């Protein structure tokens, strides 16, 4: 089964689910327009005490973490040379590319001066963790676009037929694509490794962001190893995220379930998630933060849900080969892992953030939720559009759902 052919799915685009997504995206767009008319304060509950909320916690921090499938599958298939896993690299890469694109879109909405987003390229502050994150995300986004190019080239090389264009132009574009194909295949290794390096850098630095605010982040999450925890959790969530997407996509588009690849892929997750779990528990024991565990606050409850339902339970489930072989149970376990990492990012940036002076409560406004939901819906629409027209997903062989 190591040979595979990615192909455009050419499925029907406007299904009822797609219409619903388009509606959510349209509502989000309205909220974004409102933000650019009335200001951030008009659509959000952000305040002096609460400068970061849902947008940073979900659109940015979780968006980056859940795009980790891109570099973790590239590492497995291209650096370790395990080509058996090749079929999941392209969808994971597409998700990463779209994920980071939407991270930047989310950032544009969140920062007060969207038009000034280029300024970190000119004004450097090497002391700033955020500066490093921004530089890495910027470079990585470009790396992802380059890594995605072969899919576009493969689709159009040798069949460029621009409507109404003279033959010469079509031929010129064709030979350009052929040249790009040749050059890219020679130098792609640089981008593949750079993608992994850049990911390790900013995935960990996202955790380092909160180290400057020791009095504000709840001790259950504030630890000097926060960068390491962010890195290990991002690496651990990479393959579960691939399973999550693959299951959704293959169900929705009626493709082969790919369990032959997903089952062995999640063996690695047992090991990777185990490392994260051990670090989390070890950190809690060493810093003696378990004293907070039963105090019943919303922070503590959020931590317990994150750890028990989001890490421990799915780890125990994945230990069992039966779970890894069952499409349904594997999907459930992987969804729990994805949810656990998502909740961790939300906890670090929103729930666990307690400004001691102002002590204000924060709950995202309808406008904030609409924008976040709209961005996610927009991402899913583009994903569907791209897999319909570009060779991303595995060619359907049969329509059996296990």
């Amino acid at each position, binding site marked *: 089964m190591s*040979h*595979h052919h990615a192909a455009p799915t050419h499925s029907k685009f406007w299904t009822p689910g797609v219409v619903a997504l388009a509606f959510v995206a349209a509502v989000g767009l309205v909220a974004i327009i409102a933000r*650019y008319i009335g200001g951030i304060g008009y659509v959000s509950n952000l305040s002096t005490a609460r400068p970061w909320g849902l947008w940073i916690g979900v659109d940015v921090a979780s968006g980056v973490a859940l795009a980790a499938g891109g570099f973790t599958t590239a590492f497995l298939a291209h*650096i370790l040379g395990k*080509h058996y896993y090749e079929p999941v690299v392209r969808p994971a890469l597409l998700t990463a590319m779209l994920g980071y694109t939407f991270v930047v879109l989310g950032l544009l909405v969140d920062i*007060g001066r969207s038009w000034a987003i280029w300024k970190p390229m000119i004004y450097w502050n090497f002391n*700033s963790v955020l500066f490093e994150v921004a530089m890495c995300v910027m470079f990585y986004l470009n790396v992802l676009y380059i890594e995605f190019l072969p899919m576009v080239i493969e689709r159009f090389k040798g069949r460029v037929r621009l409507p109404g264009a003279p033959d010469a132009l079509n031929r010129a574009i064709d030979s350009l694509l052929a040249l790009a194909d040749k050059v890219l295949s020679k130098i792609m290794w640089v981008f*593949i490794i750079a993608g992994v390096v850049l990911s390790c850098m900013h995935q960990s*630095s996202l955790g380092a962001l909160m180290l400057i605010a020791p009095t504000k982040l709840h001790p259950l999450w504030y630890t000097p190893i926060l960068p390491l925890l962010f890195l290990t959790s991002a690496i651990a969530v990479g393959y579960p995220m691939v399973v999550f997407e693959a299951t959704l996509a293959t169900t929705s588009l009626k493709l082969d379930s790919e369990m032959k690849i997903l089952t062995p892929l999640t063996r690695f997750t047992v090991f990777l998630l185990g490392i994260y779990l051990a670090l989390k528990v070890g950190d809690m024991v060493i810093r003696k933060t378990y004293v907070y565990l039963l105090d019943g606050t919303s922070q503590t409850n959020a931590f317990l849900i994150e750890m028990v339902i989001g890490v421990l339970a799915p780890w125990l489930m994945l230990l069992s080969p039966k779970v890894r072989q069952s499409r349904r149970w594997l999907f459930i376990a992987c969804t729990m892992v994805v949810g656990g990492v998502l909740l961790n990012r939300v906890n670090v940036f929103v729930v666990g953030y307690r400004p001691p002076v*102002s002590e204000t409560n924060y709950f995202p406004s309808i406008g904030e939720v609409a924008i976040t939901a709209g961005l996610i819906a927009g991402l899913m629409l583009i994903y569907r559009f791209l897999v319909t027209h570009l060779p991303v997903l595995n060619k359907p062989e049969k329509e059996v759902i296990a």
Partner: protein
Amino acid sequence: MGISRRNFFKILSVAGAATATARTPARAWESQAPSEAYGCIVDLTRCIGCRKCEQACNEVNKLPPPDRSFEDLTVLDRKRRPDEKTFTVVNRYYSGRIDERDQLIPTFVKLQCMHCQDPACASACIVGALSKQENGAVNYDVSKCIGCRYCMVACPFEIPAYEYHDPITPRVMKCTFCYERVANEGKLPGCAEICPVEAITFGRRDTLLKVARDRIKENPGRYVDHIYGEHEAGGTSWMYLSAQPFEKLGFVTLPDHPMPRLAETIQHSLYSYLWSPIVLFGMLSGIMWAFRGKGERQEDHEGGNL
């Protein structure tokens, strides 16, 4: 065998030394606090809560007119925080002490940016729009700002406010320490100049610390033995003397080390000369090379299939 092992250790120690050299500049975190910073001492035992400082601040910094007049002292019935239209506010606290006529004695606390010696906001700022000046002021340069609000996340005193209702060009708003007046006109900050009871003393920070210690020593029983801001968050340019324990007056308890120390130490030890990304890139290239050719039987040529 013995030789190769010795060589192996030689290589190891060379590699170790190279790594150590590369990391030397970042090993010890050093404070960037200016040596001749100015500051202010606020003596809470002197403050009478007249709000003249708020008024002067509003005029000097050309801030929008307040909702209620500066003469209106009922404003003090509610605890306030500095915001995007107000750089300084005075709050009233009752610590339970009573005077000879059984009236509660109020303590008034003026709040504004503390102008930290090693400001978390300046360390956090993605573009360096916030910076600690030689004269002690933590200055905001709006022309660099992108509005990420990481300064507000970082500030342990929760001071920077934001113009959330400006859709295109919002600014971070906080006390400027009247930077222009102090640096170019040789004047005092607006609040310090107007204070009718000399509750605010402006001067060199090291001199102010001596003044504060003398006041504590020469007036036994008048002050708690604590200068708030001498050590908090590594030291601040604005400092306080009080008769009541500071935690009863809304002051946040902070560690003595500068807030940026941990994050900056981690960043610089990992990324000075980009040594760790370069090492990682080299290691991954080695792994990729070692595993090359595996699975090349595939007919499919794509992206990473070298």
